[in-house]
C-alpha cells in the first residue's frame, strides 16, 4: 500500500515533467528482487507480488521477462515432455485507458545465454522434447501443444466474454515468425538448455528431423488466441517426422507476443489471463 502511494506520486511527478512530450517511460521502480544473503536474486521468489515484480532465475537487471515455468508433468522421461512454457509478462507502466495493444514487458534472453557471473537467465521459450520414435518400428507419432486462453474475473473463475456473443474479448497474439530452434533440455543439470544443430545423420540422431510447425491465423505472422471460445488454440504441431528431440520456440522479442485488451474490458476491472498449456499425443 505504501508502495502504491509512492508509485502514484512518482508517476505523477514524472508525468508533470514529461506530459507535454507524451506518456512514455515511467520508471520501473516496481521491479525489486528478493536477494539472498550474498545479494543474488532468489529464483522464483518475488518481493511482494502486489508490485508485479517477479524475478526468475536471473539477475534483477535482466528484469522479469524471462519467466520460467518448468513443467514436470510429462510422459515418462526419455519420451515426450513439455519441458517449459513461456511466462508472458506484459508489465511496465502502460497507459491503461488509452491503450488496447500491450506488448511484452522487456526483451527475453537468448536460449543459451550465460552472463559473466555464470548465471543463465531462463529464456521465454516453449520447449518440447520428443525422444520417442528413436527406434525403427515405423510408429507414427506426432505431438501438439495447444493453449486455452481464459480471462477470469478476480472473484471466482468466471470468464469474461461469452462465446458467440457480441462482447469484444481479450486476444493473445503469438508470433508465428519465431524460428523453432533445436535444443537439449538437461533436467539433471539444473534444466540447462543447450542449443544444438539439426543433424540428419542417423549415426548421431540428436536432432533427426524437421522443425515443428508454428500455427498462424490467416496470412498474418501471428496466431490469434481468442479468450471467448471454449476451443483450445493449437500453437505448434509436429507430425511423425517433425519435432523430434528437443525444440524451443523462444519468444525473445518484446513484440513477439501481444495482448489485445478492448477498452470496454478495461473498465471491468481486475482480471487474470489464464493460459492452460496442453501437450497432446493423439491423431492430428
Amino acid at each position, binding site marked *: 500500500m505504501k508502495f502504491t502511494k509512492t508509485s502514484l506520486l512518482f508517476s505523477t511527478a514524472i508525468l508533470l515533467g514529461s506530459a507535454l512530450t507524451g506518456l512514455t517511460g515511467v520508471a520501473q521502480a516496481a521491479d525489486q528482487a528478493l536477494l539472498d544473503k550474498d545479494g543474488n536474486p532468489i529464483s522464483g521468489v518475488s518481493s511482494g507480488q502486489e508490485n508485479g515484480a517477479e524475478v526468475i532465475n536471473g539477475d534483477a537487471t535482466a528484469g522479469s521477462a524471462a519467466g520460467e515455468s518448468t513443467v514436470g508433468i510429462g510422459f515418462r522421461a526419455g519420451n515426450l515432455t513439455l519441458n517449459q512454457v513461456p511466462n*508472458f509478462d506484459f508489465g511496465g507502466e*502502460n497507459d491503461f485507458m488509452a491503450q488496447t495493444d500491450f506488448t511484452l514487458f522487456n526483451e527475453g534472453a537468448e536460449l543459451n545465454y550465460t552472463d559473466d557471473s555464470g548465471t543463465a537467465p531462463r529464456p521465454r521459450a516453449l520447449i518440447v522434447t520428443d525422444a520417442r520414435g528413436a527406434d525403427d518400428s515405423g510408429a507414427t507419432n506426432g505431438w501438439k501443444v495447444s493453449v486455452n486462453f481464459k480471462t477470469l474475473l*478476480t472473484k471466482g473463475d468466471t470468464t469474461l466474454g461469452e462465446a458467440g456473443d457480441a462482447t469484444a474479448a481479450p486476444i493473445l497474439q503469438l508470433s508465428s515468425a519465431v524460428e523453432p530452434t533445436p535444443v537439449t533440455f538437461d533436467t539433471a543439470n539444473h534444466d540447462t538448455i543447450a542449443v544444438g544443430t539439426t543433424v540428419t545423420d542417423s549415426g548421431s540422431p540428436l536432432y533427426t528431423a524437421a522443425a515443428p510447425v508454428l500455427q498462424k491465423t490467416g496470412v498474418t505472422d501471428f496466431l*490469434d488466441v481468442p479468450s471467448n471460445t471454449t476451443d483450445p488454440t493449437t500453437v505448434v504441431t509436429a507430425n511423425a517426422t517433425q519435432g523430434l528431440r528437443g525444440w524451443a520456440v523462444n519468444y525473445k522479442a518484446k513484440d513477439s507476443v501481444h495482448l489485445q485488451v478492448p477498452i470496454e474490458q478495461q473498465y471491468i476491472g481486475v482480471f487474470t489471463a*489464464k493460459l492452460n498449456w496442453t*501437450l497432446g499425443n493423439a491423431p492430428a
Partner: protein
Amino acid sequence: MRKMNMARCLGILLFSVMSLWLGMSQQTHRVQAVQVGNIPVDVKAVFPENQNGMVTGYFDFEIASGQSNNLTLEFTNTADKEQTLTVEPVVGGTTYQGELNYEPTDRKADSSLKLPFTDLTSKKQTVTLAGKETKQVTFPVQIPQTTVNGIVLGSLYVSSEQANKEALKARSKKRMKVINTYALYFGVVLRVNDWESAKPDFRLNRVVPKLINNDPGVGVDLQNFEPAMIKDKALSIKARVTQKGSTKTIKHYNMKASFAPNSTLSYPITWGGDRITAGNYTVHMDLKTSDKTWHLKRNFTITGEQAEKLNQANQPKKNYMWLWILIGILAILLIIIFVIYMYKRGRQTGRQSVQNQPQNRGSRKKKH
C-alpha cells in the same frame, strides 16, 4: 499583461489536473506472470493386446459391439512429495481452427453423436501418489450392443487441480495478470464394429453472427454427422459469403481441416475491419477430400440489431472523463475569479465602508 498571466495560470492548472488523472489511471496497471510449481509426475500409456502396432503414442484399437477393454495409464511420482492428479475422459471434437480437439470444452454433445466416449467408460478419476510411488489407473471401456459402425474419438486428459489451484491462488488484486496452468492428454481411438464402412459426410447448420477476433463476422456450423474422421488436415474447405441471389463474393475464408467423427466446426468468416450490414446472405462451402467433394450452401439473415451490435462491440465506449476535467477546471477557475473578485471587492468595500455603505448590497445585486 494580466490576461497572459491568467492564461499561464490556466495552463498550469490544466496540466496538473490532467497529470493527476493520468497518474491515477496508470498506477494499477501491470500484467503479471506467475510461476506454477513443478508437477514431477511421468505418465505412460499401457496398451491393450490388440493395440494398433503402428501407434505407440496413444490408444488405438478395434473393438466390437458388446466387447470391453481397458485403457490404462501408469503414473510415476519422481519426487518425494505427494502428488494428486485428475484423469478425465473427454469426447473428441473439432476446433474453430480445423484441429482435432481432445480437451474439455463447454460445448454440448454433437447432435449426431450416438456413442460419446464419456458414456463408454468410467467417470473422472483422481489419483494420489505418495513420494516416488508408481500407480496404474484403469478406464474400462464397454461398448453396448449397437449397430453403429465407426470411430469413437476421445482422450484421457490429465491435469493437476492442485497445481492449477495454486496458480489461481497466486493471483493478486492487480488489474491484469497472466498465469500458466498445464495439462496433457493421450488420444483414444476406438474402432467400433465395421468402422471402415463409415465415411465422413457434411452439412451446414446454423449461421451465427458473432465476433471473430473482435471483428464482425459469422460462425458457420459445419457438421460431420458420420462416425468417421479425417486426419492430418486432409479436408480442404473453401468458403465464401454472397448477398442472397448474387454471385459476387463479399467475404471468403479457406482452411485445411482435420475433422473428428460426429462433430461440428464453428467455421469463422470475418468481415475484417469492415462493417457488417444487415441483409440476406448465402454462405457457399466447397469441401474436398482425396475421394469426395461437397458443395454446400445456406442462407442466413443478419438483422439491423445484430449488425449494429457487432459493429459497435469493438468500439471504445464513450469516455466522459474530459468533460469532468473541463467541469473541474471551470469550477476552479470560477473559484479563482470569485476569490479575486471578492478580494478586489473587499478592498473596494473597505474603502466604501468608510463611506458607510452596506457591505452586502453589491453581492446581492450580483446574484441577479
